[in-house]
């Protein structure tokens, strides 16, 4: 309101002051739990790699850490983005279909279906992934059934293969895809589809000219919420994969916790972060939904 500033200065400054106070708690939280750790991570990534718990660490501006991290672990980096990408695409296909069904076809079952989408969150991520270990295990019913039907050779396995890891990631992040998609589809006026049909669009054209463009915010939101955590995930690879399916998250975890190579771990974390931010910016710009950033 441009007119408000001149007419009611006192009231507005009071309003602004209230606004500031409302920002303070979150700002403090972010400072303590994001800005400081992030700064510390950046510092760690520049540690002298010769330091150890015994001799101590110092920030040596050792930029070679980044190059080393990439050259040592590029297979894991590539694998992370590959697995996350595949899982995101599968999530998009499954999630879009389901979100569409819930938004337009579910009728009175809408709420029930939404609750079922969220229901897995009632148990822990870890327990659910462990359950998948049993389901996909060598003596589990999935493998047994496939072998009985001769879709899989005797001795073949699912656990400890890329299939298991990607399936686990897909399962764990599917709700994060469905919910934004549902929200953007649900907002759409079904009359628009009638209008498209009335204007000579067959159902296929109506989908690609009307439904899909209108759901782009949901698609972008859903893919980001799936892809970003999936790229950094290490639980699925650790529980459902073997060393051959190691993702960058697993590497960082073991560098930090077992090998004590803080410099390398920090550098790898920063590399992962930079790649993700770059990819996200590229993606959001390409999809024409900058307002999400």
């Amino acid at each position, binding site marked *: 309101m441009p007119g408000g500033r001149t007419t009611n200065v006192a009231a507005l400054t009071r309003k602004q002051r209230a606004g500031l106070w409302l920002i303070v708690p979150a700002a403090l939280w972010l400072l303590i739990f994001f800005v400081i750790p992030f700064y510390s991570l950046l510092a760690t990534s520049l540690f002298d790699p010769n330091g150890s718990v015994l001799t101590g660490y110092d920030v040596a501006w050792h930029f070679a850490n980044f190059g080393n991290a990439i050259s040592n672990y590029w297979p894991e980096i590539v694998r992370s983005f590959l697995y996350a990408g595949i899982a995101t695409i599968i999530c998009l296909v499954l999630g879009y279909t389901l979100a569409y069904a819930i938004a337009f076809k579910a009728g009175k079952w809408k709420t029930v279906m939404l609750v079922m989408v969220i229901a897995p969150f009632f148990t822990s991520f870890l327990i659910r992934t462990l359950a998948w270990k049993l389901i996909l295990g060598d003596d589990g019913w999935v493998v047994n059934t496939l072998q009985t039907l001769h879709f899989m050779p005797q001795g073949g396995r699912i656990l400890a293969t890329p299939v298991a890891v990607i399936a686990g990631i897909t399962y764990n992040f599917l709700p994060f895809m469905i919910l934004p998609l549902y929200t953007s589809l649900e907002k759409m*006026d079904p*009359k*628009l589809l*009638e*209008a*498209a*049909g*009335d*204007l*000579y*669009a*067959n159902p296929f*054209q109506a989908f690609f*000219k*009307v439904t899909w*463009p*209108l759901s782009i915010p949901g698609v972008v939101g859903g893919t980001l919420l799936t892809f970003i955590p999936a790229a950094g995930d290490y639980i699925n690879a650790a529980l459902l994969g073997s060393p051959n399916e190691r993702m960058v998250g697993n590497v960082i975890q073991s560098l930090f916790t077992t090998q004590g190579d803080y410099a390398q771990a920090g550098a790898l974390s920063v590399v992962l972060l930079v790649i993700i931010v770059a990819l996200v910016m590229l993606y959001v710009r390409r999809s024409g939904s900058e307002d999400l950033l």
Partner: protein
Amino acid sequence: MSQAASDTNRDLRLTGLHKEYSNGFVAVKSLDLVVPSGSFFALLGPSGCGKTTTLRMIAGLEEVTEGSIAIGDTVITDDKPYRRPVNTVFQNYALFPHLTIAENVEFGLKRKGVKDTGAQVKEMLELTELTAQAGKKPAQLSGGQQQRVALARALINRPELLLLDEPLGALDLKLRRAMQVELKRIQTEVGITFVHVTHDQEEAMTMADIVAVMHRGEIEQMGTPYELYTNPKTTFVANFLGRSNLIKGKVLGREGTGADEVVKADMYGTVVSIKASRVHTTSSEGWIGIRPEKVIIQPEGTPIDAPGNFLSGAVVVGAIYMGVSTEYLIQMPWGQQLICFEQNTGRRGGLVKVGTKVDVSWRPNFAFLLDSTQDADAGREDD
């Protein structure tokens, strides 16, 4: 440009059109209707009368339970909506929010595979006075402009039939009046058959060449606005289209022949005559109907400007002054209250005061006689 409609007969024909929903509700009852090609046709009725269902069946958005829809000799009953030569202006316009006005307008042409749409879009935007809005998104437009986009988006396809579902319902009164004139102008200009669904009798009367009044899934009466207003056949039409005074009367008999034939009726002791062409009952009792603006009142003892009989002993019990006219409420000797609209010509030099005893009359050729078994309150707006 437009279809060669007038030489080959391209009338819209609904034959035995019937719609029953899965829950057993019958929305449209075996409707037979012919909409002449090139006309502005209005389906008028209260909400739930089946008018929108009829329109949606013509558009292909609702399945037909029984009967057929044809344009000329082409039966389209089972065609998909996108295969019909029909376009719709939706109630809340249903404009595509992610497309610009120009893209909205060219949507139909693109789907039909027209390559060079530029000239046609430009022409259509000019016709609907939207040229300056071409690059904007629907949300940036006013209600009246959005309404015109919806119209342009449908008309550009040169359909044989344009369906309008309460097209002006979302606009305020002033804009609605302006758009009524605008719609009529555009229809005359393009010569396409318009089928217009509305619950607003004024809207139907101002725009349509032919009005069909729908009630409970059936067409109650169809004709020009003049015919419907002056010669309603049922109490529903008499009350829904404008207002009517309905007075109980006993039929005495017929007199005269040909155009002069009248039916005499006894109305609480006064004999009135009704033109035979306006008599719509065969029973011995009926509702004598007279439109409020046809009712003439005059303070007792002064000469009344009406031929034939007049009724005396009435009292003015209410007067609402509306500038152009005054609405009087007249208490008749038998207890019923009649409405009288009087143009404020200045002839009286003031209003007739409440409490004044008046004589009441009307010109006999304006009265009509309806079936007494019908509900005298049917179609009143306040029910």
